[in-house]
């Protein structure tokens, strides 16, 4: 164990504190996989419900169907392009302060079949 000579910068310590700063940044990133349960799939009305709920969160929200690029979770046109029939697996991703709450609530909406 060697002591750091006085007057010399401790590069290792500096690097560590930089990392800690990154970890302390407020943005969180959460993902949740859900399966479309309702018979009709993600048609206009459920898509509307999803988007309305998504807009209540500050986080950026995307939805991804396997093999397809992620689309904006706050745009009904984008959600409808998923063509998510019953049984489709979707990954909901949120980035932001309320990401945890967003994926949880949006996931629940899909999993409960949009009350249909």
């Amino acid at each position, binding site marked *: 164990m060697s002591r750091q000579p006085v007057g010399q910068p401790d590069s290792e310590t500096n690097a560590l504190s930089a990392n800690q700063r990154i970890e302390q940044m407020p943005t969180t990133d959460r993902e949740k996989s859900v399966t479309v349960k309702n*018979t*009709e*799939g*993600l*048609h*206009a*009305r459920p898509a*509307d419900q999803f*988007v309305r709920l998504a807009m209540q969160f500050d986080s950026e929200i995307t939805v991804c169907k396997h093999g397809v690029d992620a689309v904006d979770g706050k745009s*009904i*046109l*984008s959600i*409808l*392009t*998923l*063509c*998510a*029939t*019953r049984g489709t697996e979707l990954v909901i991703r949120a980035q932001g302060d309320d990401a945890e709450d967003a994926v949880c609530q949006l996931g629940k909406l899909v999993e409960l079949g949009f009350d249909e």
Partner: protein
Amino acid sequence: MKFADFMCEKAIRVELQATDKPSVIQELVVALVDSGQVKEDDQAGIIEAIMKREELGSTGIGRGVAVPHTKHPSVDNLIGTVGVSAEGVEFESLDGESVQLFFLLISPPDRPGDHLRALENISRQLRDDTFCRFLKQSKTATDITQLLEEADNNQFAS
């Protein structure tokens, strides 16, 4: 699914007379009856079903577009038509804007997948501003059909 798979050219109406939601729906369903896609006996039932669906939440999905629709046992395949209103019609859209462009769809009750694929096609193409604008500016049914064909050939959205 492509537009050509469900759009009925003879029922396209580029100069809608209607100025409110019920009359737009009426005008487009009558157009489908006149073109032989729907029996006259089913007209009232279809209009009622579409209006009932609108009560659950407007199908005005924003950008001046609405997709009024219903399931109905009188059709064997998904059928649809396009209507354009230069003035725009108040439709209680999600973004509060009036609607100039209507895609009305009637699908068989047992085929939810076809309905979703039609919605997918419409919404994917409408994300292209040029396509959306050209449709709203169309003056004839032929203009609309050509635009839909071009969209089917991937000349707009990727």
